[in-house]
């Protein structure tokens, strides 16, 4: 298993290399300039000075090679829009709040999604099932853009129980974690329910029941364990998406996270930030998928990763 893990981590490098080339080519093939304003095209000489300042007047190949050279030395370059900040600074300062919020949201998603899914499946076609699925569909359908302000209005302005926004105390983390986690909870609930339904109709569950095991033991020990495999599969990408930040939730709750940089950097053609955030996301995604793959081993021994060599 250790060999597999090491091999997978080594495989990360060619993956990142390909991603870097594709991203680099894509972003440079999109028209527009990091220095354009919406009000007025920049005078040509001013643009030339800015291009020279950031080395954008060099051939693309040179730009790419020099960029990758710096990346290998751990330097992700300057932000074009925030001249005295580097992409390293941006990630160092804004990833931690996003990561904490993402993990809390994942916690909310798991704590709500899995039990709702299990209950709905076990009590299939009862009021409890309908209620659970109503909550799940509402969770998927109501966007954070609506849910966030709604929670602020209810819990901060009307009831006064929690702060409106900003980041730093546990109270400030409650509403954004719920806002961000609820959508994922809904996805997990539906997935758990479907997978659970499939599992509880299988032969080994009938066998377990006929052995005289209590229903609770059948569900928790036999069914749930098998039903969780697809759930764990989606947790990999879900984790990567949640911990790298959500523009909408961070904006609503004024959290100094990384989310906006994914969106803003593309809109404003801030090339080094586009590259940095994309590479970061790729690393987190590949690593979380690796952890998921390794964890299959603990849940279902049949899926043990074999050293194919």
């Amino acid at each position: 298993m250790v060999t597999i893990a090491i091999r997978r981590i080594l495989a990360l490098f060619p993956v990142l290399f390909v991603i870097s080339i594709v991203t680099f080519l894509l972003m440079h093939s999109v028209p527009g300039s990091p220095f354009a304003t919406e009000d007025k095209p920049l005078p040509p000489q001013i643009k030339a000075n800015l291009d020279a300042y950031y080395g954008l007047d060099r051939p693309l190949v040179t730009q790419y090679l020099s960029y990758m050279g710096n990346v290998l030395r751990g330097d992700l370059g300057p932000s074009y829009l925030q001249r005295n900040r580097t992409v390293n600074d941006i990630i160092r300062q804004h990833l931690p709040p996003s990561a904490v919020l993402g993990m809390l949201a994942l916690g909310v998603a798991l704590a709500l999604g899995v039990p709702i899914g299990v209950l709905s499946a076990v009590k299939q076609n009862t009021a409890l099932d309908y209620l659970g699925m109503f909550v799940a569909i509402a969770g998927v359908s109501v966007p954070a853009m609506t849910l966030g302000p709604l929670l602020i209005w209810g819990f901060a302005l009307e009831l006064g129980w929690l702060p409106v926004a900003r980041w730093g105390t546990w109270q400030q983390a409650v509403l954004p974690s719920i806002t961000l986690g609820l959508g994922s909870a809904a996805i997990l609930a539906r997935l758990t329910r479907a997978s659970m339904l499939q599992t509880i109709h299988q032969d080994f569950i009938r066998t377990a029941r006929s052995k005289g095991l209590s229903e609770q033991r059948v569900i928790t020990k036999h069914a749930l364990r098998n039903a969780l495999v697809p759930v764990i599969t989606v947790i990999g990408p879900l984790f990567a998406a949640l911990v790298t930040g959500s523009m909408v939730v961070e904006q609503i709750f004024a959290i100094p996270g990384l989310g906006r940089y994914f969106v803003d950097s593309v809109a404003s053609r801030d090339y080094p930030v586009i590259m940095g955030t994309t590479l970061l996301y790729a690393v987190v995604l590949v690593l979380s998928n690796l952890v998921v793959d390794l964890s299959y081993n603990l849940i279902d021994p049949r899926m043990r990763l074999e050293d194919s060599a």
Partner: protein
Amino acid sequence: MSRVRNVVRVLFAALTLLTGLVSAQTLNVTLDQNTAVIDPTANWLYDLTANQFVPLVGYDFVTGSTEPAGAESWSVSADGLTYTFNIRQGWNWSDGTPVTAQDYVNSFRRIADPATAAPMAYRIYVIEGAQAINQGQATDFATLGVTAVDDHTLTIKLVSPSSWFLSSIASIGHAVPQWVIDEHGSAWTDPENVVVNGPYKLVRLDHQDIAVLEANPSYYDADAVQIKTINLYAIAQESTALALFERGELDTVAVPASDLDRVKADPTLSGQFYNGPSNVLYYYDFNALRPPFDNRLVRQAFAAATDKQAIVDFITKGGEIAAPTITPPGSVGHVPASAGVGIPYDPEHAKELLAEAGYPGGQGLAPITLAFNASETHSRIAQAIQQMWQNTLGATVELQAVEGATYSQVAADGAYNAWRMGWGMDYPDANNLHAELFTSDVGARAIVRNAAYDSLIAAAATEQDSAKRLEMYTEAERILVQEEAGVMPIYWSAVNLLIRPELHRVLAPSFNREFWKWTLD
């Protein structure tokens, strides 16, 4: 006796505590602008720069005139080419170094230097030698027409007499501490390095979270600065900022358009509401390179078919002013409504003009593409105008929402028949709009060219007599928005604010928030 003494002591302590609380004047506001480049020589002016560094002259938006700032007084040579500034004496940077004329020279040199790559450098091209240096044709900074005659006398030589020059340097050319820049490079504006000469000093900066300004005791007018600490919170979402205001965590906020009706109806909030003019023009350009807008009658017809009042009354609803002309009120060169310049809303006349142009009832008119940079408000305004043009003129109008980063360039080159634009004034003078947006040498390639307009704008820029200047701008606007109808001004924006009763802030269309002029009860 000792009891009395104790009572006195307790009273005294309470009094100290109370005065301590009262004098700890702290203002909580939003930080609504780019916090990353606080260098006044490398970026446009933002609140954090305007409050830390001092320009040569200031601008008072309440009286509409320039006011002393870094320079106590100044004079202009008879030919209008040389400005002499007397820099304040006995005034130090926050590290104790005296502020001198050389600090201003260094600022203009840094702006002109192509290595600084200052995006707003073109704004000082009016200074002798600045354009050549910025474009790399000259490397000797001694050729720049900004000279320190002695420690407290500065001269600036211009290429041509420019009546707008004084008001323009209220927002560019703030003194910078060159020795700090030499030591720290681009990190010189970080709180741990920065040395300032203005009313406030940045003591904390957590990007996207909070910036804290503290009153600078070495500022020349430090005694007049009443608010000692300012917390600026980065709240990107306007509705969140409003919720924070309602919870008492912010002292003033902008009201998002979607909350205006609620705020105006709320018994408490309506009493804290302020609506006033801002300095932003919202307008459409017509593409004069392609039919049908290469025909001035068609442009006039479309302008006459546009009900601007309906747009501000029913679409934007934020107290905007329907704009017959270009320059917003409050800026030098604003054409008063009484001058009768502009194309008023007149559907019948619009139909006649279109028929005269050869498209009676819109017959033969190819579909018009109307573009805007993608946003909710722009889209709603464009839909309304689409409706007006279709109903009145029988024109088929196709809307095109374009992504921001490519929009201005593509539009200016003539990709669409008509397109949306906006402009916030950099300095309160008509020259800022006309000479940067509409004249033939710098304006969008696709908008109409008119030699008479160009020469009027050039002449108005150098004219010293303010009455004559206004006449020139009036005539220039008559050509641009009425006779040629090359540009269609739509409205001048408004500011909608909530202000806690204890806070007294400057309520004028200023460009940056000048915290040193605000007070708290």
